[in-house]
Protein backbone atom coordinates (compact mmCIF):
# COMPACT_ATOMS: atom_id res chain seq x y z
CA UNK A 1 0.00 0.00 0.00
CA UNK A 2 2.69 2.40 1.05
CA UNK A 3 4.91 1.60 -1.91
CA UNK A 4 1.91 2.05 -4.22
CA UNK A 5 1.35 5.50 -2.80
CA UNK A 6 5.03 6.32 -3.09
CA UNK A 7 5.10 5.27 -6.73
CA UNK A 8 2.07 7.49 -7.37
CA UNK A 9 4.04 10.57 -6.35
CA UNK A 10 7.27 9.38 -7.90
CA UNK A 11 8.55 11.60 -10.68
CA UNK A 12 11.49 11.13 -13.01
CA UNK A 13 12.54 13.88 -15.36
CA UNK A 14 14.42 13.02 -18.53
CA UNK A 15 17.17 15.63 -18.79
CA UNK A 16 16.91 15.81 -22.58
CA UNK A 17 13.25 16.72 -22.26
CA UNK A 18 13.51 18.72 -19.03
CA UNK A 19 13.10 22.05 -20.86
CA UNK A 20 9.46 21.16 -21.54
CA UNK A 21 8.60 19.70 -18.13
CA UNK A 22 7.54 22.86 -16.33
CA UNK A 23 6.13 24.69 -19.39
CA UNK A 24 3.85 21.71 -20.05
CA UNK A 25 2.45 21.87 -16.53
CA UNK A 26 1.96 25.64 -16.84
CA UNK A 27 0.14 25.22 -20.15
CA UNK A 28 -2.23 22.66 -18.69
CA UNK A 29 -2.92 24.94 -15.74
CA UNK A 30 -3.62 27.80 -18.16
CA UNK A 31 -6.01 25.68 -20.21
CA UNK A 32 -7.75 24.49 -17.06
CA UNK A 33 -8.18 28.08 -15.84
CA UNK A 34 -9.39 29.19 -19.25
CA UNK A 35 -12.00 26.43 -19.25
CA UNK A 36 -13.06 27.43 -15.74
CA UNK A 37 -13.34 31.10 -16.73
CA UNK A 38 -15.39 30.11 -19.74
CA UNK A 39 -17.77 27.97 -17.69
CA UNK A 40 -18.26 30.59 -14.98
CA UNK A 41 -18.25 33.84 -16.97
CA UNK A 42 -18.28 32.90 -20.65
CA UNK A 43 -21.49 30.86 -20.77
CA UNK A 44 -23.77 33.42 -19.07
CA UNK A 45 -22.21 36.06 -21.34
CA UNK A 46 -22.93 34.02 -24.45
CA UNK A 47 -26.49 33.40 -23.25
CA UNK A 48 -26.92 37.14 -22.76
CA UNK A 49 -25.55 37.68 -26.25
CA UNK A 50 -28.05 35.24 -27.73
CA UNK A 51 -31.02 36.77 -26.02
CA UNK A 52 -29.82 40.21 -27.06
CA UNK A 53 -29.29 41.55 -23.53
CA UNK A 54 -25.72 42.44 -24.44
CA UNK A 55 -23.91 43.30 -27.60
CA UNK A 56 -20.45 42.17 -28.62
CA UNK A 57 -18.96 45.59 -29.24
CA UNK A 58 -16.66 47.14 -26.68
CA UNK A 59 -18.75 50.29 -27.01
CA UNK A 60 -16.55 51.52 -29.84
CA UNK A 61 -18.36 54.83 -29.98
CA UNK A 62 -16.25 56.11 -27.07
CA UNK A 63 -13.01 55.22 -28.80
CA UNK A 64 -11.16 58.07 -30.44
CA UNK A 65 -10.18 55.95 -33.44
CA UNK A 66 -8.11 58.64 -35.13
CA UNK A 67 -5.86 59.21 -32.14
CA UNK A 68 -5.57 55.54 -31.16
CA UNK A 69 -4.76 54.21 -34.62
CA UNK A 70 -2.71 57.29 -35.39
CA UNK A 71 -0.57 56.64 -32.31
CA UNK A 72 0.03 53.05 -33.37
CA UNK A 73 0.87 53.93 -36.97
CA UNK A 74 3.20 56.76 -35.94
CA UNK A 75 4.94 54.57 -33.36
CA UNK A 76 5.54 51.76 -35.84
CA UNK A 77 6.80 54.23 -38.45
CA UNK A 78 9.04 55.80 -35.79
CA UNK A 79 10.60 52.48 -34.78
CA UNK A 80 11.15 51.36 -38.37
CA UNK A 81 12.63 54.64 -39.58
CA UNK A 82 14.79 55.02 -36.46
CA UNK A 83 16.43 51.67 -37.10
CA UNK A 84 16.84 52.44 -40.81
CA UNK A 85 18.31 55.91 -40.39
CA UNK A 86 20.44 54.77 -37.46
CA UNK A 87 22.27 52.35 -39.74
CA UNK A 88 23.70 55.27 -41.71
CA UNK A 89 25.26 56.75 -38.58
CA UNK A 90 26.25 53.79 -36.45
CA UNK A 91 26.89 54.33 -32.73
CA UNK A 92 26.06 58.02 -32.75
CA UNK A 93 22.40 57.89 -31.76
CA UNK A 94 21.64 60.23 -34.64
CA UNK A 95 18.93 57.92 -35.99
CA UNK A 96 17.13 58.47 -32.73
CA UNK A 97 17.63 62.22 -32.83
CA UNK A 98 16.65 62.71 -36.47
CA UNK A 99 13.54 60.57 -36.28
CA UNK A 100 12.34 61.66 -32.83
CA UNK A 101 11.86 65.25 -33.96
CA UNK A 102 9.29 64.54 -36.71
CA UNK A 103 7.69 61.80 -34.59
CA UNK A 104 7.16 64.06 -31.62
CA UNK A 105 5.93 66.85 -33.86
CA UNK A 106 3.37 64.57 -35.53
CA UNK A 107 2.24 62.96 -32.27
CA UNK A 108 1.75 66.36 -30.62
CA UNK A 109 -0.18 67.53 -33.65
CA UNK A 110 -2.33 64.41 -33.43
CA UNK A 111 -3.09 64.90 -29.75
CA UNK A 112 -3.66 68.65 -29.62
CA UNK A 113 -7.19 70.00 -29.50
CA UNK A 114 -8.22 73.44 -30.83
CA UNK A 115 -4.88 74.15 -32.46
CA UNK A 116 -3.87 77.79 -32.56
CA UNK A 117 -0.68 79.69 -33.33
CA UNK A 118 0.58 79.64 -29.76
CA UNK A 119 -0.03 75.93 -29.30
CA UNK A 120 1.62 75.20 -32.65
CA UNK A 121 4.69 77.15 -31.63
CA UNK A 122 4.90 75.40 -28.26
CA UNK A 123 4.63 71.93 -29.71
CA UNK A 124 7.10 72.68 -32.49
CA UNK A 125 9.64 73.98 -30.01
CA UNK A 126 9.03 70.96 -27.77
CA UNK A 127 9.56 68.58 -30.69
CA UNK A 128 12.91 70.25 -31.37
CA UNK A 129 14.18 70.75 -27.85
CA UNK A 130 13.09 67.56 -26.06
CA UNK A 131 14.77 65.03 -28.40
CA UNK A 132 17.81 67.28 -28.67
CA UNK A 133 18.14 67.50 -24.92
CA UNK A 134 17.50 63.77 -24.44
CA UNK A 135 20.07 62.94 -27.11
CA UNK A 136 22.67 65.29 -25.68
CA UNK A 137 22.25 64.17 -22.06
CA UNK A 138 21.94 60.44 -22.74
CA UNK A 139 24.18 59.86 -25.74
CA UNK A 140 26.81 62.55 -25.18
CA UNK A 141 27.02 62.96 -21.41
CA UNK A 142 26.02 59.49 -20.21
CA UNK A 143 27.26 57.52 -23.25
CA UNK A 144 24.09 55.48 -23.49
CA UNK A 145 23.56 53.49 -26.68
CA UNK A 146 20.82 54.97 -28.85
CA UNK A 147 19.59 53.86 -32.28
Amino acid at each position, binding site marked *: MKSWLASLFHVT*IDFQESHMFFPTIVMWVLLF*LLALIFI*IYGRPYLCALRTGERTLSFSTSHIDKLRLIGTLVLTIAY*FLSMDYVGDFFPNTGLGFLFMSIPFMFCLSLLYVHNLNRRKFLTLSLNALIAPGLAWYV*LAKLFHITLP
Partner: protein
Amino acid sequence: MDLLADLTPLFFTLVFVGVLIGILFGAIPGMTATMAVAVCLPLTYSLNLREGLALLLGLYVGGISGGLVPAILLNIPGTPSSITTTFDGYPMTVNGDGEKALKIGIISSLFGGLFSAAILFFFAPALADIAIKFSYVEKFLIIFLALTVIASLSSNVLVGIFSGVLGVWISLIGTYDVSVGGNGDTRLMFDFMVPYLEEGFSLLPVLIGLFGLATILQEAEKGVKDEPLCADVSLSNRAKFSMRDFKGQIINLFRSSSIGTFVGMLPGVGGSAASVLSYTQAKNFSKDPSKLGTGAPEGVIASEASNNGLTGGALIPLLSLGIPGDSTTAVLIGAFTLQGIQVGPLFIGENMETWHTMMVALVVANLVMFFVMFFAIKYIAKVITVPKYILYPIIVMMCVVGAYAINYGIMFDVWTLLLFGVFGYLSGKIGIEVAPLIIGFILGNSAEVYFVKSLESFGTLTIFFTKSPIAMFLWVLIAVSITYSIYTTVKSIRTKRANAGH
Protein backbone atom coordinates in the same frame (compact mmCIF):
# COMPACT_ATOMS: atom_id res chain seq x y z
CA MET B 1 32.63 54.98 7.51
CA ASP B 2 31.99 53.82 3.98
CA LEU B 3 28.38 54.83 4.27
CA LEU B 4 29.34 58.48 4.68
CA ALA B 5 31.54 58.24 1.62
CA ASP B 6 28.46 57.35 -0.40
CA LEU B 7 26.47 60.29 0.79
CA THR B 8 27.94 62.70 -1.71
CA PRO B 9 26.26 65.87 -2.93
CA LEU B 10 25.44 63.90 -6.09
CA PHE B 11 23.56 61.36 -3.98
CA PHE B 12 21.36 64.02 -2.41
CA THR B 13 20.88 65.79 -5.73
CA LEU B 14 19.70 62.54 -7.29
CA VAL B 15 17.22 61.92 -4.46
CA PHE B 16 15.97 65.47 -4.84
CA VAL B 17 15.64 65.24 -8.62
CA GLY B 18 13.95 61.86 -8.27
CA VAL B 19 11.42 63.13 -5.77
CA LEU B 20 10.69 66.19 -7.88
CA ILE B 21 10.14 64.24 -11.11
CA GLY B 22 8.19 61.64 -9.14
CA ILE B 23 5.85 64.26 -7.68
CA LEU B 24 5.24 65.67 -11.14
CA PHE B 25 4.44 62.21 -12.52
CA GLY B 26 2.19 61.50 -9.56
CA ALA B 27 0.44 64.84 -9.89
CA ILE B 28 -0.37 64.41 -13.57
CA PRO B 29 -3.48 62.27 -13.82
CA GLY B 30 -2.91 59.10 -15.82
CA MET B 31 0.77 58.91 -14.95
CA THR B 32 1.89 56.78 -12.04
CA ALA B 33 4.91 56.14 -9.84
CA THR B 34 5.55 52.93 -11.76
CA MET B 35 5.65 54.87 -14.99
CA ALA B 36 8.01 57.43 -13.45
CA VAL B 37 10.45 54.70 -12.43
CA ALA B 38 10.13 52.85 -15.74
CA VAL B 39 10.60 55.95 -17.87
CA CYS B 40 13.55 57.26 -15.86
CA LEU B 41 15.43 53.95 -15.73
CA PRO B 42 17.72 54.84 -18.66
CA LEU B 43 19.09 57.69 -16.55
CA THR B 44 20.50 55.09 -14.13
CA TYR B 45 22.35 53.11 -16.81
CA SER B 46 25.44 55.19 -16.36
CA LEU B 47 25.15 55.62 -12.58
CA ASN B 48 26.43 53.10 -10.07
CA LEU B 49 23.97 51.05 -8.05
CA ARG B 50 23.70 53.33 -5.04
CA GLU B 51 23.31 56.50 -7.06
CA GLY B 52 20.78 54.75 -9.26
CA LEU B 53 18.82 53.62 -6.22
CA ALA B 54 18.87 57.16 -4.81
CA LEU B 55 17.18 58.40 -7.97
CA LEU B 56 14.71 55.51 -8.22
CA LEU B 57 13.64 55.57 -4.56
CA GLY B 58 13.13 59.31 -4.88
CA LEU B 59 10.92 58.70 -7.90
CA TYR B 60 8.99 56.02 -6.03
CA VAL B 61 8.27 58.13 -2.96
CA GLY B 62 7.56 61.25 -5.01
CA GLY B 63 5.33 59.38 -7.44
CA ILE B 64 3.18 57.87 -4.72
CA SER B 65 2.88 61.21 -2.90
CA GLY B 66 2.22 63.45 -5.89
CA GLY B 67 -1.12 61.81 -6.53
CA LEU B 68 -2.76 63.69 -3.71
CA VAL B 69 -2.52 67.05 -5.48
CA PRO B 70 -5.06 66.48 -8.29
CA ALA B 71 -7.08 64.22 -5.99
CA ILE B 72 -7.65 67.08 -3.61
CA LEU B 73 -7.83 69.96 -6.09
CA LEU B 74 -9.59 68.41 -9.06
CA ASN B 75 -11.33 65.33 -7.73
CA ILE B 76 -9.17 63.24 -10.09
CA PRO B 77 -6.83 60.71 -8.49
CA GLY B 78 -3.34 61.38 -9.87
CA THR B 79 -2.39 57.77 -9.16
CA PRO B 80 -4.70 54.82 -8.46
CA SER B 81 -3.61 54.86 -4.82
CA SER B 82 -5.07 58.31 -4.21
CA ILE B 83 -8.63 57.38 -5.16
CA THR B 84 -9.77 57.52 -1.54
CA THR B 85 -8.07 60.90 -1.09
CA THR B 86 -10.67 62.37 -3.41
CA PHE B 87 -13.50 61.25 -1.11
CA ASP B 88 -12.70 63.83 1.53
CA GLY B 89 -9.99 65.95 -0.06
CA TYR B 90 -12.12 67.37 -2.83
CA PRO B 91 -15.09 68.28 -0.60
CA MET B 92 -12.58 70.14 1.57
CA THR B 93 -11.43 72.10 -1.49
CA VAL B 94 -15.01 72.90 -2.37
CA ASN B 95 -15.47 74.20 1.17
CA GLY B 96 -12.43 76.42 0.69
CA ASP B 97 -10.07 74.27 2.72
CA GLY B 98 -7.94 73.13 -0.23
CA GLU B 99 -4.63 74.21 1.20
CA LYS B 100 -5.44 72.68 4.56
CA ALA B 101 -6.38 69.39 2.90
CA LEU B 102 -3.13 69.36 0.89
CA LYS B 103 -0.99 70.00 3.95
CA ILE B 104 -2.80 67.39 6.01
CA GLY B 105 -2.24 64.95 3.14
CA ILE B 106 1.44 65.83 2.90
CA ILE B 107 2.10 65.37 6.61
CA SER B 108 0.20 62.06 6.61
CA SER B 109 2.26 60.95 3.64
CA LEU B 110 5.47 61.80 5.47
CA PHE B 111 4.35 59.89 8.54
CA GLY B 112 3.29 56.86 6.50
CA GLY B 113 6.55 56.87 4.57
CA LEU B 114 8.80 57.13 7.62
CA PHE B 115 6.75 54.57 9.57
CA SER B 116 7.06 52.01 6.79
CA ALA B 117 10.77 52.79 6.36
CA ALA B 118 11.27 51.95 10.05
CA ILE B 119 9.37 48.67 9.67
CA LEU B 120 11.43 47.88 6.60
CA PHE B 121 14.67 48.55 8.45
CA PHE B 122 13.87 46.15 11.27
CA PHE B 123 11.81 43.56 9.49
CA ALA B 124 13.56 42.92 6.16
CA PRO B 125 16.88 41.65 7.65
CA ALA B 126 14.96 39.39 10.05
CA LEU B 127 12.88 37.93 7.24
CA ALA B 128 16.00 37.49 5.12
CA ASP B 129 17.67 35.61 7.97
CA ILE B 130 14.85 33.10 7.93
CA ALA B 131 14.74 32.94 4.15
CA ILE B 132 18.48 32.25 3.94
CA LYS B 133 17.83 28.74 5.25
CA PHE B 134 15.33 28.02 2.48
CA SER B 135 16.14 25.27 0.02
CA TYR B 136 14.69 25.12 -3.49
CA VAL B 137 11.58 23.42 -2.10
CA GLU B 138 10.71 26.29 0.25
CA LYS B 139 11.68 28.88 -2.36
CA PHE B 140 9.24 27.33 -4.79
CA LEU B 141 6.52 27.30 -2.14
CA ILE B 142 7.15 30.98 -1.38
CA ILE B 143 6.59 31.83 -5.04
CA PHE B 144 3.52 29.62 -5.07
CA LEU B 145 2.25 31.42 -1.98
CA ALA B 146 2.93 34.80 -3.61
CA LEU B 147 0.86 33.81 -6.63
CA THR B 148 -2.05 32.57 -4.51
CA VAL B 149 -2.00 35.77 -2.45
CA ILE B 150 -2.10 37.89 -5.60
CA ALA B 151 -5.01 35.85 -6.85
CA SER B 152 -6.97 36.02 -3.62
CA LEU B 153 -6.72 39.81 -3.56
CA SER B 154 -7.48 40.45 -7.22
CA SER B 155 -10.81 41.94 -8.09
CA ASN B 156 -11.65 38.67 -9.81
CA VAL B 157 -9.89 35.67 -8.29
CA LEU B 158 -9.99 33.41 -11.29
CA VAL B 159 -8.86 36.04 -13.77
CA GLY B 160 -6.20 37.20 -11.29
CA ILE B 161 -4.66 33.75 -11.04
CA PHE B 162 -4.97 33.28 -14.79
CA SER B 163 -3.05 36.52 -15.32
CA GLY B 164 -0.34 35.37 -12.90
CA VAL B 165 0.08 31.99 -14.61
CA LEU B 166 0.07 33.68 -18.00
CA GLY B 167 2.95 35.83 -16.76
CA VAL B 168 4.82 32.68 -15.74
CA TRP B 169 4.19 31.20 -19.18
CA ILE B 170 5.52 34.28 -20.96
CA SER B 171 8.66 34.21 -18.79
CA LEU B 172 9.35 30.61 -19.85
CA ILE B 173 9.65 31.56 -23.50
CA GLY B 174 13.32 31.31 -24.44
CA THR B 175 16.15 28.97 -23.55
CA TYR B 176 16.13 26.66 -20.54
CA ASP B 177 19.44 28.10 -19.50
CA VAL B 178 22.44 25.86 -18.87
CA SER B 179 23.68 28.22 -16.15
CA VAL B 180 20.74 27.25 -13.94
CA GLY B 181 21.05 23.56 -14.73
CA GLY B 182 18.86 23.46 -17.82
CA ASN B 183 19.58 21.56 -21.00
CA GLY B 184 19.99 24.66 -23.15
CA ASP B 185 17.05 23.93 -25.44
CA THR B 186 14.61 26.61 -26.54
CA ARG B 187 10.91 26.21 -26.00
CA LEU B 188 7.48 27.78 -26.54
CA MET B 189 8.37 29.36 -29.87
CA PHE B 190 8.62 28.66 -33.57
CA ASP B 191 12.01 28.19 -35.20
CA PHE B 192 11.99 31.54 -36.96
CA MET B 193 11.68 33.32 -33.60
CA VAL B 194 14.82 31.74 -32.13
CA PRO B 195 17.27 34.49 -33.17
CA TYR B 196 15.13 37.10 -31.41
CA LEU B 197 13.79 35.21 -28.44
CA GLU B 198 16.72 33.00 -27.50
CA GLU B 199 17.05 34.91 -24.25
CA GLY B 200 13.30 35.34 -23.86
CA PHE B 201 11.66 38.73 -23.46
CA SER B 202 13.80 41.22 -21.53
CA LEU B 203 12.17 42.38 -18.33
CA LEU B 204 12.47 46.12 -18.78
CA PRO B 205 11.00 46.52 -22.27
CA VAL B 206 8.09 44.39 -21.06
CA LEU B 207 7.61 46.60 -18.00
CA ILE B 208 8.03 49.87 -19.87
CA GLY B 209 5.57 48.64 -22.49
CA LEU B 210 2.97 47.57 -19.96
CA PHE B 211 3.21 50.64 -17.78
CA GLY B 212 4.37 53.34 -20.19
CA LEU B 213 3.19 52.77 -23.72
CA ALA B 214 -0.04 51.02 -22.70
CA THR B 215 -1.06 54.08 -20.68
CA ILE B 216 -0.44 56.34 -23.66
CA LEU B 217 -2.58 54.08 -25.84
CA GLN B 218 -5.37 54.13 -23.27
CA GLU B 219 -5.23 57.91 -23.18
CA ALA B 220 -5.14 58.11 -26.98
CA GLU B 221 -8.30 56.02 -27.06
CA LYS B 222 -9.98 58.54 -24.79
CA GLY B 223 -8.91 61.35 -27.09
CA VAL B 224 -6.11 62.90 -24.96
CA LYS B 225 -8.34 65.48 -23.41
CA ASP B 226 -6.84 67.87 -20.93
CA GLU B 227 -8.55 67.81 -17.57
CA PRO B 228 -10.99 70.67 -17.22
CA LEU B 229 -10.04 72.76 -14.25
CA CYS B 230 -13.15 72.59 -12.14
CA ALA B 231 -11.55 74.01 -9.05
CA ASP B 232 -9.53 77.16 -8.84
CA VAL B 233 -5.95 75.94 -8.61
CA SER B 234 -4.85 79.18 -7.02
CA LEU B 235 -5.33 78.26 -3.42
CA SER B 236 -7.40 80.44 -1.23
CA ASN B 237 -6.05 81.00 2.22
CA ARG B 238 -9.34 81.01 3.98
CA ALA B 239 -8.60 78.20 6.40
CA LYS B 240 -5.04 78.19 7.64
CA PHE B 241 -3.50 74.85 8.34
CA SER B 242 -2.25 74.12 11.84
CA MET B 243 -0.95 71.02 13.55
CA ARG B 244 -4.12 71.06 15.65
CA ASP B 245 -5.86 69.41 12.73
CA PHE B 246 -4.07 66.22 13.74
CA LYS B 247 -5.54 66.26 17.22
CA GLY B 248 -7.10 62.88 18.00
CA GLN B 249 -5.76 61.41 14.76
CA ILE B 250 -2.65 59.70 16.12
CA ILE B 251 -4.30 56.28 16.23
CA ASN B 252 -5.65 56.83 12.74
CA LEU B 253 -2.14 57.70 11.53
CA PHE B 254 -0.62 54.58 13.04
CA ARG B 255 -3.44 52.30 11.93
CA SER B 256 -3.43 53.59 8.36
CA SER B 257 0.37 53.45 8.06
CA SER B 258 0.38 49.88 9.39
CA ILE B 259 -2.32 48.82 6.94
CA GLY B 260 -0.36 50.43 4.12
CA THR B 261 2.87 48.72 5.13
CA PHE B 262 1.20 45.34 5.51
CA VAL B 263 -0.67 45.52 2.21
CA GLY B 264 2.57 46.65 0.59
CA MET B 265 4.24 43.43 1.73
CA LEU B 266 1.67 41.30 -0.07
CA PRO B 267 2.96 40.71 -3.58
CA GLY B 268 1.18 42.27 -6.50
CA VAL B 269 -1.23 44.28 -4.42
CA GLY B 270 -0.92 47.95 -5.17
CA GLY B 271 -1.63 51.17 -3.36
CA SER B 272 -5.29 51.37 -4.26
CA ALA B 273 -6.04 48.28 -2.16
CA ALA B 274 -4.06 49.75 0.74
CA SER B 275 -5.82 53.09 0.74
CA VAL B 276 -9.30 51.62 0.25
CA LEU B 277 -8.73 49.20 3.13
CA SER B 278 -7.45 51.86 5.50
CA TYR B 279 -10.19 54.30 4.49
CA THR B 280 -12.86 51.71 5.33
CA GLN B 281 -11.15 51.04 8.65
CA ALA B 282 -11.01 54.76 9.42
CA LYS B 283 -14.73 54.86 8.73
CA ASN B 284 -15.38 51.85 10.95
CA PHE B 285 -13.45 53.31 13.86
CA SER B 286 -14.53 56.91 13.39
CA LYS B 287 -16.51 58.62 16.12
CA ASP B 288 -18.74 60.12 13.49
CA PRO B 289 -18.65 57.88 10.36
CA SER B 290 -21.26 59.96 8.55
CA LYS B 291 -18.76 62.82 8.31
CA LEU B 292 -16.38 60.81 6.13
CA GLY B 293 -16.91 61.56 2.49
CA THR B 294 -18.08 65.10 3.17
CA GLY B 295 -14.67 66.67 3.78
CA ALA B 296 -13.32 65.14 6.98
CA PRO B 297 -9.55 65.49 7.48
CA GLU B 298 -9.38 62.00 8.95
CA GLY B 299 -10.34 60.52 5.56
CA VAL B 300 -7.42 62.30 3.89
CA ILE B 301 -5.13 61.16 6.70
CA ALA B 302 -6.20 57.52 6.35
CA SER B 303 -5.77 57.48 2.60
CA GLU B 304 -2.44 59.30 2.38
CA ALA B 305 -0.74 57.64 5.37
CA SER B 306 -1.55 54.22 3.97
CA ASN B 307 -0.49 54.78 0.39
CA ASN B 308 2.87 56.10 1.51
CA GLY B 309 3.12 53.27 4.02
CA LEU B 310 3.10 51.08 0.97
CA THR B 311 6.56 52.23 -0.13
CA GLY B 312 8.53 50.66 2.71
CA GLY B 313 6.20 47.68 2.88
CA ALA B 314 6.60 46.77 -0.78
CA LEU B 315 10.39 46.82 -0.40
CA ILE B 316 10.32 44.18 2.38
CA PRO B 317 9.56 41.10 0.24
CA LEU B 318 11.73 42.54 -2.54
CA LEU B 319 14.85 42.82 -0.43
CA SER B 320 14.36 39.74 1.75
CA LEU B 321 12.82 37.23 -0.67
CA GLY B 322 13.37 38.73 -4.11
CA ILE B 323 9.61 39.01 -4.64
CA PRO B 324 8.34 42.48 -5.58
CA GLY B 325 5.55 43.84 -3.40
CA ASP B 326 3.91 45.95 -6.11
CA SER B 327 4.40 46.92 -9.73
CA THR B 328 6.80 49.77 -8.93
CA THR B 329 9.13 47.50 -6.96
CA ALA B 330 8.89 45.08 -9.90
CA VAL B 331 10.52 47.76 -12.00
CA LEU B 332 13.11 48.27 -9.26
CA ILE B 333 14.08 44.59 -9.67
CA GLY B 334 14.94 45.53 -13.23
CA ALA B 335 17.27 48.24 -11.93
CA PHE B 336 19.04 45.75 -9.66
CA THR B 337 19.43 43.20 -12.45
CA LEU B 338 20.87 45.95 -14.58
CA GLN B 339 23.64 46.45 -12.03
CA GLY B 340 24.26 42.71 -11.88
CA ILE B 341 22.83 42.28 -8.40
CA GLN B 342 20.40 39.55 -7.54
CA VAL B 343 17.88 40.52 -4.88
CA GLY B 344 16.95 37.75 -2.50
CA PRO B 345 17.70 36.50 0.99
CA LEU B 346 21.44 37.05 0.56
CA PHE B 347 21.12 40.63 -0.62
CA ILE B 348 21.15 42.48 2.68
CA GLY B 349 23.89 40.39 4.28
CA GLU B 350 26.19 40.61 1.29
CA ASN B 351 25.49 44.24 0.47
CA MET B 352 25.36 45.87 3.89
CA GLU B 353 26.58 49.21 2.52
CA THR B 354 24.01 49.28 -0.25
CA TRP B 355 21.28 48.34 2.21
CA HIS B 356 22.19 51.21 4.50
CA THR B 357 22.47 53.62 1.59
CA MET B 358 19.02 52.53 0.46
CA MET B 359 17.58 53.21 3.89
CA VAL B 360 19.17 56.66 3.95
CA ALA B 361 17.84 57.34 0.46
CA LEU B 362 14.36 56.27 1.48
CA VAL B 363 14.28 58.47 4.57
CA VAL B 364 15.84 61.43 2.75
CA ALA B 365 13.35 60.96 -0.11
CA ASN B 366 10.47 61.18 2.35
CA LEU B 367 11.89 64.32 3.94
CA VAL B 368 12.57 65.95 0.58
CA MET B 369 9.06 65.02 -0.52
CA PHE B 370 7.71 66.71 2.56
CA PHE B 371 9.67 69.93 2.18
CA VAL B 372 9.13 70.23 -1.56
CA MET B 373 5.42 69.59 -1.32
CA PHE B 374 4.79 71.54 1.85
CA PHE B 375 6.49 74.71 0.71
CA ALA B 376 6.11 74.54 -3.05
CA ILE B 377 2.65 73.05 -3.27
CA LYS B 378 1.22 76.07 -5.07
CA TYR B 379 3.68 75.70 -7.93
CA ILE B 380 3.28 71.94 -8.13
CA ALA B 381 -0.47 72.33 -8.36
CA LYS B 382 0.12 74.26 -11.59
CA VAL B 383 1.80 71.21 -13.17
CA ILE B 384 -1.57 69.60 -13.63
CA THR B 385 -2.15 72.20 -16.28
CA VAL B 386 0.82 71.19 -18.46
CA PRO B 387 -0.82 70.05 -21.69
CA LYS B 388 -0.78 66.36 -22.50
CA TYR B 389 0.02 66.89 -26.16
CA ILE B 390 3.43 68.06 -24.95
CA LEU B 391 3.93 65.41 -22.28
CA TYR B 392 2.90 62.21 -23.99
CA PRO B 393 5.27 62.39 -26.95
CA ILE B 394 8.12 62.91 -24.46
CA ILE B 395 6.99 59.81 -22.55
CA VAL B 396 6.94 57.68 -25.70
CA MET B 397 10.42 58.91 -26.60
CA MET B 398 11.75 58.05 -23.14
CA CYS B 399 10.14 54.60 -23.34
CA VAL B 400 12.08 53.96 -26.55
CA VAL B 401 15.35 55.07 -24.99
CA GLY B 402 14.78 52.80 -21.99
CA ALA B 403 13.95 49.77 -24.08
CA TYR B 404 16.71 50.22 -26.64
CA ALA B 405 19.56 50.98 -24.29
CA ILE B 406 18.90 48.24 -21.76
CA ASN B 407 20.82 45.54 -23.65
CA TYR B 408 23.14 48.03 -25.34
CA GLY B 409 21.19 48.53 -28.52
CA ILE B 410 18.92 45.69 -29.56
CA MET B 411 16.11 46.82 -31.83
CA PHE B 412 14.04 43.76 -30.91
CA ASP B 413 13.69 45.20 -27.40
CA VAL B 414 11.97 48.24 -28.89
CA TRP B 415 9.53 45.96 -30.70
CA THR B 416 9.00 44.08 -27.43
CA LEU B 417 8.05 47.45 -25.96
CA LEU B 418 5.44 47.96 -28.66
CA LEU B 419 4.18 44.38 -28.38
CA PHE B 420 3.62 44.63 -24.66
CA GLY B 421 2.30 48.18 -24.93
CA VAL B 422 -0.45 46.92 -27.22
CA PHE B 423 -0.87 43.81 -25.07
CA GLY B 424 -1.26 45.97 -21.93
CA TYR B 425 -3.82 48.13 -23.70
CA LEU B 426 -5.82 45.10 -24.87
CA SER B 427 -5.62 43.29 -21.55
CA GLY B 428 -7.30 46.29 -19.95
CA LYS B 429 -10.17 45.66 -22.39
CA ILE B 430 -10.59 41.95 -21.71
CA GLY B 431 -9.93 42.14 -17.98
CA ILE B 432 -6.48 40.55 -17.65
CA GLU B 433 -4.77 42.08 -14.64
CA VAL B 434 -1.34 43.52 -15.22
CA ALA B 435 0.06 43.40 -11.68
CA PRO B 436 -0.27 39.60 -11.20
CA LEU B 437 0.98 39.11 -14.76
CA ILE B 438 4.15 41.06 -14.04
CA ILE B 439 4.83 39.25 -10.77
CA GLY B 440 4.32 35.92 -12.56
CA PHE B 441 6.64 37.06 -15.33
CA ILE B 442 9.36 38.06 -12.89
CA LEU B 443 9.13 34.92 -10.75
CA GLY B 444 8.41 32.41 -13.53
CA ASN B 445 11.99 31.45 -14.32
CA SER B 446 12.97 30.97 -10.68
CA ALA B 447 9.78 28.99 -10.06
CA GLU B 448 10.74 26.62 -12.85
CA VAL B 449 14.28 26.08 -11.60
CA TYR B 450 13.18 25.54 -7.99
CA PHE B 451 10.40 23.17 -8.99
CA VAL B 452 12.29 21.06 -11.51
CA LYS B 453 15.51 20.87 -9.48
CA SER B 454 13.60 19.83 -6.34
CA LEU B 455 11.95 17.02 -8.26
CA GLU B 456 15.17 16.00 -9.98
CA SER B 457 17.00 15.63 -6.69
CA PHE B 458 14.25 14.04 -4.61
CA GLY B 459 12.27 12.25 -7.28
CA THR B 460 8.93 12.55 -5.55
CA LEU B 461 6.17 15.12 -5.28
CA THR B 462 5.75 14.47 -1.57
CA ILE B 463 8.98 16.38 -0.89
CA PHE B 464 7.06 19.65 -1.26
CA PHE B 465 5.00 18.70 1.79
CA THR B 466 7.51 16.88 3.96
CA LYS B 467 10.80 18.71 3.39
CA SER B 468 10.77 20.81 6.56
CA PRO B 469 8.48 22.45 9.13
CA ILE B 470 8.80 25.68 7.15
CA ALA B 471 7.43 23.93 4.08
CA MET B 472 4.44 22.70 6.09
CA PHE B 473 3.90 26.17 7.52
CA LEU B 474 3.97 27.63 4.01
CA TRP B 475 1.31 25.12 2.96
CA VAL B 476 -0.86 26.32 5.82
CA LEU B 477 -0.50 29.89 4.55
CA ILE B 478 -1.26 28.76 1.00
CA ALA B 479 -4.35 26.95 2.24
CA VAL B 480 -5.47 30.04 4.15
CA SER B 481 -5.04 32.27 1.12
CA ILE B 482 -6.89 29.83 -1.18
CA THR B 483 -9.72 29.40 1.32
CA TYR B 484 -9.97 33.16 1.66
CA SER B 485 -10.20 33.65 -2.10
CA ILE B 486 -12.86 30.95 -2.47
CA TYR B 487 -14.77 32.46 0.44
CA THR B 488 -14.76 35.98 -1.03
CA THR B 489 -15.72 34.72 -4.49
CA VAL B 490 -18.64 32.69 -3.17
CA LYS B 491 -19.71 35.64 -1.05
CA SER B 492 -19.61 38.08 -3.95
CA ILE B 493 -21.52 35.66 -6.20
CA ARG B 494 -24.18 35.27 -3.47
CA THR B 495 -24.60 39.01 -2.98
CA LYS B 496 -24.82 39.42 -6.75
CA ARG B 497 -27.54 36.78 -6.92
CA ALA B 498 -29.34 38.33 -3.98
CA ASN B 499 -29.23 41.73 -5.68
CA ALA B 500 -30.43 40.24 -8.94
CA GLY B 501 -33.28 38.55 -7.10
CA HIS B 502 -34.66 41.82 -5.78
